[in-house]
């Protein structure tokens, strides 16, 4: 079941009527399914936050449509099922954690009696137990991020939307947020979050979408995205130079590095894993027969960072 569906969403900004219009989101379409953790990737200025803001009606689209739980985004009942944490959130620092959560819970229509029992639960879930009576002005950035997460899940939403939730967190804080997302998923909730920290995405996401310059570059299962891209094998050999050169030519091995050993790279030329493995074996046999000694063999698979860099391109090309 689709929890979130975005169709040809575009956003054009114009500062003044005499300034040039700037398209920050260009016909973006994707969907998020129930119970998955969906990573929304892209460099700064890609349009991630713009998309999220449109989903929450913080801004309005220039064209296109977004649906949450099969209903238009402006339907009041859809917002009741969403929890949201903004990027670099600022909260009312005169409130205590308890007062802050009572305020946000109140906006969801939760009664004070329900909140009295719910607030300690949520604070414990985000690792903030015992902070009920502390004013937010005394909270560190990591604590503010966590209290922000607490307000996002206070009403037990079906979909949690997090805009750069790892920003400003130390490694321990990042792990705790990741664990919380996994915990939410285990409870059948859907998590949609934007980030540019790829290692976090690789470790927890089921599916991802990559966005750059307002355009959707790819969207799909994380394993598919990573494995469809080229793989290669690095073979480190030692032997007579002439023999190795001849071997490399006949097996189309690319010399990457040469010192005491020679490092050759065998690229996967859109072969399936069986075909590619057969070619590696054949190349290895030939190298051994040519008198070479095998020092090491490393299977290299593109990780998400490689895929991301390939799709997004170098910074120069983005500027």
């Amino acid at each position, binding site marked *: 079941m689709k929890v979130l569906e975005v169709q040809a969403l575009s956003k054009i*900004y114009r500062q003044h009527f005499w300034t040039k219009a700037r398209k920050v989101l260009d016909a973006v379409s994707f969907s998020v399914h129930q119970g998955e953790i969906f990573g929304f990737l892209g460099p700064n200025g890609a349009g991630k936050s713009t998309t999220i*803001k449109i989903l*929450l*009606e*913080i*801004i*309005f689209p220039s064209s296109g449509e977004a649906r949450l739980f099969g209903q238009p985004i402006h339907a*009041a*009942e859809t*917002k*009741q099922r*969403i929890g*949201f*944490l*903004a990027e*670099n*959130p*600022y*909260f*009312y620092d*005169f*409130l205590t954690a308890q007062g802050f959560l009572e*305020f*946000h819970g*109140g*906006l*969801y*229509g939760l009664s004070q009696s329900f909140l009295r029992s719910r607030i300690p639960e949520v604070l414990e879930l985000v690792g903030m137990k015992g902070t009920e009576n502390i004013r937010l002005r005394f909270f560190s950035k990591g604590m503010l991020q966590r209290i*922000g997460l607490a*307000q996002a899940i206070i009403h037990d939403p079906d979909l949690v*939307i997090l805009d750069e939730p790892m920003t400003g967190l130390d490694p321990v804080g990042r792990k705790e947020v990741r664990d919380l997302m996994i915990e939410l998923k285990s409870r059948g909730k859907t998590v949609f979050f934007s980030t540019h920290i790829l290692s976090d995405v690789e470790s927890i996401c089921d599916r991802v979408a990559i966005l750059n310059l307002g355009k959707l570059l790819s969207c799909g299962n994380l394993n598919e995205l990573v494995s469809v891209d080229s793989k290669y094998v690095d073979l480190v050999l030692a032997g007579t130079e002439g023999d190795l050169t001849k071997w490399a030519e006949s097996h189309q091995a690319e010399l990457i590095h040469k010192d005491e050993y020679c490092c050759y790279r065998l690229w996967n030329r859109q072969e399936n894993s069986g075909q590619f493995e057969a070619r590696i074996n054949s190349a290895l046999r030939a190298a051994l027969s040519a008198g070479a000694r095998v020092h090491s063999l490393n299977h290299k698979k593109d990780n998400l960072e490689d895929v991301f860099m390939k799709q997004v391109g170098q910074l120069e090309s983005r500027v």
Partner: protein
Amino acid sequence: MKSLFRIWMIAKNSFLEARHNKVLHIAGGFAAILIIFSLFLGQVSLHQNVKVVKDIGMATISLFGVFVAIFLGVNSLYRELQYRTIYSIVSKPISRSEILMGKFAGMLMILSVVVFLMTCYLYLVTFFIEHRVDWALLPAIGLILVELWIVASIGIFFSSFSTPFLSGFFTAGLFLVGRVSSELGAFGERSDDFFFRLLATGVQKVFDLQAFNLRSEVVHDIPVYTQDFWLPVAYAAFLILIVLFSSFQLFKKRDFK
């Protein structure tokens, strides 16, 4: 009912936020000093001691109240946008008109508390002079409060689409126009310029904040009739409704970048 509860949550939060604002505390201190200063002015007047204190006291309540109304009117909403706390609020099941209503209700609450405290203070000072409580001041102070609500609604209107500086400038400007609209109208009637005459007399008829000034009457024991109070209140309700409705229209389609 749920809508009212959401409006109440925003209003309560705005009230708490304003209560913690240091600028208002400092301005309140100045106002209190000004009322004390009126005691000395009263001493130099000829047998008019208490009247001077009452007049300056109510003028101070009005002046300080207008400052608070403009300051809160233009900043309260802008702070939510500047610090992006509005993102968390808009993502909740609450309409933008409810947010604006909540903000306005919060301002009504803080203005009412400010006027109440200042009134208590003024009564304390006048009691010190004449050893009695002059209840006749209440209608005038009530209308000062209603006038402040109008100013706050105008501040919200401008801040729903403009920056605090411009909003403050426009609100203060409009307030001054409202305060001198009687003189403006009289001036317009004598003018040869048709368009100026139309504009000046039009402004006088539509936007006359002098209707909320009963200070001279209550200080100099001139009779105040029921309609002197209720007609301006009805006029204020009408004006506030129009201003708030216009604010909703501007606010509901605004992008919070």
